[in-house]
């Protein structure tokens, strides 16, 4: 099962390595990862998406909690959350296909951020599913390059 874990950590060097090494020791492959500052300069938030068995993940969460640099962990898997990722996709575009591509981007409320004689660069934000969907639709035109950020997530409401 896929899990989204949000970890608040001290904003200092070596933190990511400590966390990554706990995952690798268990043979877990981190599917996506994003790190960034929070409202507090001393604290960063790491959002990790991993695939794994519930029991093993519970053990891993306890191990993460033992790290001195980890302040708080929340498993957002079964929570009401808003989650977003960002992708930049460079698609092959000819005079014939350009307008069709632009229509698709429009439907997904994406943005065209660069155009050249034979390609278009698309910026898209949204849930993982949404980004996957536009990627699938653009694939037949020829994707020259694609880059995706890790997922970020936040629990809804007053939490």
């Amino acid at each position: 099962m896929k899990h989204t874990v949000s970890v608040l950590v001290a904003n200092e060097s070596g933190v990511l390595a400590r966390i990554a090494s706990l995952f690798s020791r268990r043979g877990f492959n981190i599917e996506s990862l994003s790190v960034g500052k929070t409202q507090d300069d001393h604290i960063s938030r790491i959002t990790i998406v991993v695939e794994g068995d519930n029991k093993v993940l519970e053990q891993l969460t306890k191990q993460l909690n033992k790290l001195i640099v980890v302040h708080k962990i929340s498993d957002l898997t079964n929570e009401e959350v808003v989650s977003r990722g960002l992708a930049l996709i460079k698609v092959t575009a000819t005079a014939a296909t350009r307008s069709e591509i632009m229509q698709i981007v429009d439907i997904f409320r994406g943005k065209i951020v660069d155009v050249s004689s034979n390609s278009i660069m698309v910026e898209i934000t949204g849930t993982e599913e949404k980004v996957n969907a536009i990627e699938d639709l653009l694939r037949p035109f020829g994707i020259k390059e694609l880059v995706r950020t890790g997922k970020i997530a936040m629990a809804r409401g007053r939490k």
Partner: protein
Amino acid sequence: MGKLTGAEIFIESLYHEKVETIFGYPGGAVLPIYNVLYDAKFEHIMPHHEQGGIHAADGYARSTGKVGVCIATSGPGGTNLVTGLATAYMDSVPIVAFTGQVPRSMLGTDAFQEADITGITTPITKHNYLVQDVKDLGRIIKEAFHIASTGRPGPVLIDIPKDVLLEKCEFLYPKELNLPGYSPNYNGHSMQIKEAAKAINEAQKPVIYSGGGVIISGASDYLRQLAKKGSIPVTTTLTGLGAFDERDDLSLGMLGMHGTTEANLAVSNADLLIAIGSRFDDRVTGKLEKFAAEAKVIHIDIDPAEVGKRVEIDIPIVGDVRRILEKLNPLVEDRSREDWSKQIDNWRKLDDTEVIEKKKLSPKQIIENISDLTQGDALITTEVGQHQMWSAQFYQYTKPRSFMTSGGLGTMGYGFPAAIGVQVGNKDKNVFALAGDGSFQMNSQELATVAKNKLPINIIIFNNGYLGMVRQWQEMFYERRYSSVCLKKQDDCPPGCSSPGDHCPIMIPDFVKLAGAYGIKAKRVSKKEDVRSALEWAINSPEPILLDFIIEEEENVFPMVPPGGSLDKMVLKGDVE
């Protein structure tokens, strides 16, 4: 206090932490520290290998309950600490290890004697630091001592670049700690404690399975109180030996792979298992599905990550063992459990199998004599292997912090240097370093440290010419194909001979001569009638003594639960199908 250099701050901080003894080996990157140590008031013990130094700090910590402190230089100095850190991490031993590092401007350039020691030691330390600013040094040292010694203890490493040691800044040792990511839970949940008391009071066949955590938390008295009150038999793990007086009727001795029959059968038949400060290690449980299969399980431990890690727990209580027992004991009813104790007494008899008289010395005889001569008052360290298990089985442990052994990591080469730290921390005690002839050679260079510091350690070698435990497994599980276990094998041995014996022309090494090379008195003992007098000579001598006991070559450790087997299927002696 005015401006101090990093090296001076290091010294001042250690004074603040009330450090008395340091185990350290100098080198280029720690020269500034050694320059200040020249005038400092610490007892400084220099080992002859950094691994020896950290094991000594470990022995010091385990036997005294204080934090062990060691210093090594950058690069190989640091990497030589790795086994010692992993050993201490597995057995929850509080150590603060300092390493020198290349100057900050050279970090990451493959400079001379550079190793990324914080990167290397991340998975085997409770925490580690690379000091990047001299202003942080005092705070980091304070945090390190706090982290190492509180909660579930463990080793912490501080890596200090040489230029940080030379840089100056205002020094004020911080009073407060600010560690938002570190708050061990000491007080167990009171509802859970009530649940546990109820389960104990309802149980007909309870067993306490007590581990090293009981010793670390200083809870031996409370353990005894609990056992006595509820007439609950107690079995301990290897690192838990000494937490419960083995002379007590309720003592079952050690459990697990080489545990006693009564301990393993009691656990297998119990209706309630009370695990205290223990972690269900595979050498303890054997086949997990069969371990205490009939029992409800209470688990008391300070580390939440240990609770439910290997076994489903019915009543988990996270917190400090001593504090929890303090609250639990008054809720436990006074009662006797006669049927249960009768049944256990019957199991005890299964262990009393006849001893087959052999020509050479038996390890049992040697260790029982040590036990008898010291009345359980000695401090024992061991290496790893057969002699370690014999030491666990045949010495009668009566008090906590009297048995220092590498349980989790199983580090050969641990015990002899550890004995140095034990003796340094307990100057008036009888210290015994029990070692196999294989293990002893992993850190025998520390004979120099023993000689130079005139530490009156009794070094006892169980010499069977084999790496005995590996040989035992090859005998039992690999059709006696003795591969690379004969310690006397040479190029010109007759083909097909795989067993050392009297026909072997030489001893490699001759331990008596080896000791002699360091000016340490030594004796080889091969006759049964000489065992006791040799031990008496060693105990009464104010100097270090090495005794080389020539024991039966193919003696095995029994009882044994074959790896992956269930605890009620023990091999008492002889062959395994």
